[in-house]
């Protein structure tokens, strides 16, 4: 358990954040320049906050009042940087073993072999760093950070410098690591899909402040607070289980508490758990069950809430089973349908509009 309560001023920029992260993957999510990197650097010990405290599993790593500041190396955290930061004068193997040079405790060689295998680094070991591709670099950086068996893994936008195919490749490696290593992680990102795929909890950061934190579904859906709208496009995030896959059409059926969704994609397996993001502006509402439409997902639900957003928009929350789906419609559409809370409506969602 990591608990952070810090305050720091960087010129005109002011970071003031308090949050806690449990086991599993916690995402620090926010736009670039929101202070995420500063926060993770404070956790790593590379940056010293002006005031506050940082604790990990009951151990105080930083306390301004008591003058405690544990050196980065002594925190036993692994850190994967956005740009890899591999040592250019060392080859891949030496980079991987770097942390072991300074370790007092013994690290089992089986751990090293497992890591090299998990990250497919075997063929790269003798290569020099200058000859690696972007994706290979990040794999080595991951291995290097994990080699000394850290207590916590910090990742600062590790995929941001990669092109799309490489990004998906490393994302798969991260999912494997998440499954294989029982290691808490702090994952800094501004990409919604990375958070949806990896994170168990999310801390939403904007302008150096924590806007919301908690379960991914709740925070990323912007459900309870609506604060998410300031940072990213809101909607709903639903967790479901893959029920069936139709490879010929390239579609998957996902069941969740309240129904079924059809979405595009077949690069996952039956019984996989995944999160689906439904953008509010992609959801249309109908008072009757429509027929002869191309829309693949028609979910019956009850209007929970209507919230005006400015002069023109209304955000309608529709309860489908235990899940809230959000639809952003115009004020005129609301008037024409005479929508009120408590009414039964059908939410229409195109399969191609679903992100995962």
């Amino acid at each position, binding site marked *: 358990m990591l608990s952070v309560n810090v305050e720091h001023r960087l010129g005109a920029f002011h970071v003031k954040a308090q949050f806690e992260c449990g086991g599993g993957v916690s995402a620090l999510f926010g736009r670039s320049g929101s202070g995420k990197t500063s926060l993770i650097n404070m956790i*790593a*010990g*590379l940056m010293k906050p002006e005031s506050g405290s940082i604790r990990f599993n009951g151990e105080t790593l930083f306390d301004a009042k008591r003058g405690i500041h544990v*050196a*980065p*190396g*002594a925190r*036993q*955290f*692994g*850190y994967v*940087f956005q*740009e890899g*930061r*591999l*040592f*250019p*004068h060392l080859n891949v193997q030496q980079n991987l073993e*770097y*942390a072991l*040079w*300074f*370790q007092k405790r013994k690290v089992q060689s089986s751990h090293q072999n497992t890591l090299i295998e998990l990250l497919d680094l075997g063929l790269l070991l003798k290569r*020099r*760093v*200058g*000859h690696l591709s972007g994706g290979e670099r990040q794999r080595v950086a991951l291995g*290097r*950070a994990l080699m*000394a068996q850290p207590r916590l893994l*910090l990742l600062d936008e590790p995929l941001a410098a990669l092109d799309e195919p490489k990004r998906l490749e490393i994302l798969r490696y991260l999912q494997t690591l998440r499954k294989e290593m029982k290691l808490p992680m702090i994952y800094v990102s501004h990409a919604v899909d990375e958070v949806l795929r990896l994170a168990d909890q999310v801390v939403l950061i904007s302008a150096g402040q924590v806007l919301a934190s908690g379960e991914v579904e709740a925070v990323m859906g912007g459900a309870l607070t609506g604060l998410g709208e300031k940072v990213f496009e809101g909607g709903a995030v639903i967790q479901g289980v893959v029920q069936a896959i139709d490879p010929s059409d390239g579609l998957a059926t996902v069941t969740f508490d309240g129904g079924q969704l059809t979405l595009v994609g077949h690069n996952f397996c039956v019984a996989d758990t995944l999160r689906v993001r439904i953008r509010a502006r992609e959801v249309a509402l109908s008072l009757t069950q429509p027929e002869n439409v191309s829309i693949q997902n028609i979910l019956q639900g009850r209007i929970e809430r209507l919230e005006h957003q400015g002069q023109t928009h209304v955000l309608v929350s529709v309860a489908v089973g235990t899940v809230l789906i959000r639809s952003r419609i115009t004020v005129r559409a609301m008037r024409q349908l005479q929508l009120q809370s408590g009414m039964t409506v059908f939410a229409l969602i195109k399969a191609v509009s679903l992100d995962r």
Partner: protein
Amino acid sequence: MITEQEWAIIQLSLQVAGLSVLISLPAGLFVAYCLARWEFTGKSFIDAFVHLPLVLPPVVVGYALLVVFGQQGVLGHWLEAHWGWVVAFRWTGAAIASAVMSFPLMVRAMRLSIESIDQRLEAAAKTLGAGVLGVWFTVTLPLALPGIITGVVLAFARSLGEFGATITFVSNIPGETQTLPLAIYSLWQVPGAEPAAFRLCILSLLVSFAALWFSQVFVSQAQRRVRGQDAISER
């Protein structure tokens, strides 16, 4: 081909230049690191002071050394009283003069290479458990190596050619302080010895050129290492 006397002069010159570099290397590295990394009041003053030998007349530097290290000088007196060391009019004194004169060149080269190191790599090393010394020896020093070699070779070559400060501080004593340039100068004063002086000029050129060429080989190899490429094969 090369006379015994000429060999002796070359040997003495290499000996003086070698000791000169040994003296200035630790100090040069320290000063270069401070100037590259630290911000402190009086930094520009230190910077200017380090560069003084580059612009002062060498005679002035030689005279200053005589005042400080001479047997009546503050440091010279102390060295003799406590350690029995005398540097004035000795080859060790010639090395000190060369060290002072070549110091700015050494510091410049090292400072530039330390400044060009990506400090984020040092931060990465810290998160992997390296302490201050660990970071210095496993990241900073290896990455600064091309600049350090350049600095050492420049200082070495500059020492081989040192004349003004040396002749003022330790005089021109054959077999003790008479290095290549001083020997050439002496021969020039003797009527009919121009051919011998010319031979020494050629030798001086060869020695300096060899030093620079060796350093080029070392530096380009070290640079390729620092860029993370193979030292042998280039892609």
